[in-house]
C-alpha cells in the first residue's frame, strides 16, 4: 500500500447504512483505510500529495457485497475468470464478490478454497471470497468438511443452484454446521416439481407452450428447510426467493426467532415473466422470473427488511448456450455491472429508499457473512462506490467487462451509475 496516495473524497453525500448515516461531508482515506468521515476535512491539514476528489453531486456508499455470483474459474474460464468478474464488479460498484462452488473442480476441498483465494489475490481487483459446497461433488448426499473449509476461508456453504433433495442430509448439515457458526445457503427449488420447467408456471407459459415451474416448487422446499432450522438451530439463508407465498413462510420463521435470512436477485426485483415473451433466453433464469404481483411483493419485502439481501445472481453464459430455442438454452444472466443501476431504478420509482437498497446490497450481506465490509466507519478498509445519481445512460453490451454478454438489460436505459469504485483505498474503476 506504500504506493497509495492518501485520498480525500470531498463534499460527497455520505450514505452509510451501518450507522444509518446520511450526511454531506468528506471521507479521508490513507493506507487503504478510512481515517475520518466528517463534515468538512478540507480545511484540516492534509498530508502532502493527497488526491482530492471533488464529489459534489455524488453519493459515497460502502462498496457492494454481492453474495451470489457464478464465475467459472476454475474450469469454465471462457465464461468468466476471477479477473474478468472482478473488472465487471468494479464497474458496478461491487467491491466484494462471493463466488459459488459449482466450478470444475468443485469447491468442496480446502485446497480449492486456497486456490481461489490465491488466484483472486493475484488477478482480481476486488475482494473475492468463495462459498464452499455443502455436499461433496454437489451431489446432495454427503456433507463436506465444513470445519476445514471454513478455516481455509469459505464464508458459507451451498450447493449453488441445486437443492438438497434429502431432508435428512440437510438436517445433519444444519446440525453439524451450527457449532462452527457456519452459514448454510440453500437454493429452494424442488427438482421434481421443476421437472422440465423453464419459466414461471401460469397463463403466459401455457400460451408460449413452455413448461412451467410452479411457485410451490420454491415454497415447499422453503417450508421444509425452515422446519429443519427450527429443530436444529442452524444458520440458514435462502439463496433466491421469488414469490409472495415464500415471503409469508419467511416472515413466520423470522417472527419465531429462527436464525434465518434471505436474498432476492436484482432480476426478480426489476423484471417479470412478461420479459420472456419473444422467447428471450437472456431472461431464462433459475428460479424463473415470476408475475408482476410477485415482483412488487418482493420489492416491498426488501423495503421492509424481510428480504435481507439483494444479489446480482451473476451467471455468465456464452452465445453458444443462449442462442438456442428457449427450452434448450442455459439458465442465467450476468448482473455484477448492472445490479446497482437496476436497483437505482427502484429508488427512482419510489419503491425503495437508497439507504435500504445499499443496506441490502452491502451492509446486510457483510453482516450475515461476517465480513468487515459494508460500512464507511473509520478504521475499516476503504471499499467505496461513488454514484452519480442522475447520470442517464444506455447499457451498451459491447462495453461490458464480463466475458459474456447475457445481460437482461441489453440496451436498457438507466438513471444513475457508478462513477468510481475504490477497493482498499485504490481506485479500481473510474467512469470517464
Amino acid at each position, binding site marked *: 500500500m506504500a504506493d497509495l496516495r492518501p485520498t480525500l473524497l470531498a463534499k460527497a453525500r455520505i450514505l452509510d447504512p451501518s450507522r444509518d448515516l446520511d450526511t454531506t461531508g468528506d471521507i479521508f482515506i490513507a493506507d487503504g483505510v478510512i481515517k475520518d468521515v466528517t463534515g468538512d476535512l478540507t480545511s484540516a491539514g492534509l498530508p502532502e500529495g493527497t488526491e482530492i476528489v471533488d464529489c459534489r453531486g455524488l453519493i459515497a456508499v460502502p462498496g457492494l457485497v454481492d453474495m451470489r455470483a457464478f464465475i467459472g474459474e476454475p474450469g469454465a474460464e471462457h465464461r468468466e475468470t476471477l479477473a474478468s468478474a472482478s473488472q465487471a464488479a468494479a464497474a458496478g460498484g461491487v467491491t466484494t464478490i462471493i463466488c459459488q462452488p459449482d466450478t470444475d473442480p468443485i469447491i468442496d476441498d480446502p485446497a480449492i478454497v486456497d486456490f481461489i483465494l490465491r488466484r483472486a489475490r493475484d488477478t482480481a481487483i476486488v475482494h473475492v471470497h468463495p462459498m464452499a459446497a455443502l455436499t461433496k461433488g454437489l451431489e446432495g448426499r454427503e456433507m463436506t468438511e465444513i470445519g476445514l473449509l471454513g478455516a481455509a476461508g469459505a464464508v458459507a456453504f451451498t450447493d449453488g443452484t441445486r437443492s438438497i433433495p434429502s431432508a435428512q442430509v440437510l438436517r445433519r448439515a444444519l446440525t453439524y454446521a451450527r457449532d462452527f457458526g457456519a452459514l448454510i445457503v440453500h437454493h429452494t427449488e424442488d427438482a421434481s416439481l421443476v421437472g422440465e420447467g423453464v419459466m414461471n408456471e401460469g*397463463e403466459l407459459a*401455457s400460451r408460449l407452450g*413452455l413448461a412451467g415451474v410452479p411457485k410451490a416448487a420454491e415454497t415447499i422446499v422453503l417450508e421444509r428447510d425452515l422446519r429443519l432450522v427450527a429443530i436444529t438451530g442452524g444458520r440458514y439463508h435462502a439463496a433466491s426467493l421469488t414469490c409472495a407465498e415464500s415471503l409469508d413462510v419467511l416472515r413466520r420463521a423470522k417472527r419465531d426467532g429462527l436464525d434465518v435470512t434471505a436474498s432476492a436477485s436484482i432480476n426478480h426485483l426489476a423484471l417479470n415473466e412478461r420479459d420472456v415473451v419473444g*422467447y428471450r433466453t437472456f431472461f431464462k433464469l433459475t428460479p424463473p422470473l415470476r408475475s408482476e404481483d410477485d415482483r412488487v411483493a418482493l420489492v416491498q419485502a426488501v423495503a421492509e427488511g424481510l428480504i435481507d439481501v439483494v444479489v446480482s445472481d451473476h451467471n455468465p453464459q456464452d452465445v453458444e448456450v443462449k*442462442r438456442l*430455442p428457449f427450452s434448450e438454452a442455459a439458465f442465467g444472466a450476468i448482473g455484477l455491472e448492472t445490479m446497482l443501476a437496476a436497483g437505482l431504478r427502484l429508488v427512482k420509482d419510489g419503491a425503495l429508499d437508497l439507504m435500504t437498497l445499499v443496506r441490502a446490497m452491502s451492509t446486510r450481506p457483510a453482516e450475515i457473512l461476517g465480513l468487515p465490509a459494508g460500512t464507511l466507519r473509520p478504521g475499516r478498509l476503504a471499499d467505496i462506490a461513488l454514484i452519480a445519481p442522475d447520470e442517464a445512460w444506455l447499457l451498451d453490451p459491447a462495453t461490458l467487462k464480463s466475458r459474456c454478454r447475457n445481460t437482461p438489460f441489453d440496451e436498457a436505459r438507466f438513471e444513475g451509475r457508478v462513477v468510481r469504485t475504490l477497493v482498499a483505498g485504490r481506485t479500481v474503476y473510474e467512469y470517464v
Partner: protein
Amino acid sequence: MLAVPAGCVYPADFDMTSNPTASFTLSRRHLLGIEGLSPEEIVGLLDLAEEFVVLNRQVEKKRATLRGRTQINLFFEASTRTQSSFELAGKRLGADVMNMSVSTSSVKKGETLIDTAATLNAMHPDVLIVRHSASGAVELLARKVDCSVVNAGDGAHEHPTQALLDALTIRRNKGRIEGLTVAICGDIAHSRVARSNILLLHALGAQVRVVAPPTLLPKDIERFGVEVHHDMRHGLADVDIVMMLRLQRERMNGSFVPSVKEYFHFWGLDEAKLRYARPDALVMHPGPMNRGVEIDSAVADGAQSLIREQVEMGVAVRMAVLDALSRNLPNG
C-alpha cells in the same frame, strides 16, 4: 404466355399466367402462428384455399405461382403427413421443393439451429417450412433468415396451418364457424394444435371447450377464454364439432394418465360418448390417430368423421398460405 424453358415439366399448353381468381396477400413475411392474424386475414386464407380445393380435384393440378422459387421443408421432428402435405402444396404451385429431415443431418453433429439457418439461408431459398420440437424455435430461426418462414409446428406452441385446415374443413361442412361450439379433447397441455385452434376459432367467433383430465390441461387454460371440462358427458353436450387430439405414448402409462385402458374408458371417443354431442356433430383428428386410445375405429371411420377430409384440406390450405406469402417475396 411465358416461354417454357427446356426440360420444364409443364405441359406445353399450360397457362403460366393463370392465378386463382380470389387473390389474397398476407401482409407479412412469415406465418409463425395464428396469434397476430386478423379475422380478415384468416378468412382471406380460407377463401383462397377454397380455390385450391377445386384445383386439387382436377387432373391438372399445377400453378406457376412459385415457379423458380425454392421451398425447403426443414423438419427437426419427424412428420409424415405435414411434410408430404407441404411438399405437395409447394410442387403444385410450381416450386422446387427440397426435404431436409434433420434427424439425419448436421444437428446430430452438434450444429445449432442458428447455424443451420445461416447455412440454408446462404442457398437462397424463398420459403422455409420448419418444424421443431422446441416452442419458439421457428420464430428464432425466422429472425436469422431472409426468406419467408412457415411454422409447421413448434413445440407446444403453434401449428397454424393445422388450425387453418381444421377451420376450412369445419366451414365447408357447417357453412360457418361463428356461433359453433367446438370441443377440443385430450392432451391439451402438450398440444400446439389445440393452442392454434383455440386462437383461430375464437377469432372467427366460435365457442371453444377443452375436455381433458386435469393432468393434461395447461395451467390457467381458462384464461384463454375456453370452457373447461374434465368429463366427456358434460364436455361434449350439444357441441357441433368434436376435435380429438393425439396422446403421446410416453404420457399414457402412469405419468399423466394411469393407463391406456383407463384413458380410453373415460376420455376415448366412442359411439356412446359421441352421442352426448349434437346429432349432427362432426368428428375431427389432426392425425396420426391412436385407434383405441383417444378414438375408437367405429367413430374414426364413421359417418360423422371428417378426418380424411382434413387431410385433403391440408394441401389446399398450405397452397393458400404459400400463395399468399409468395406475393410478398422479393421480385414477387
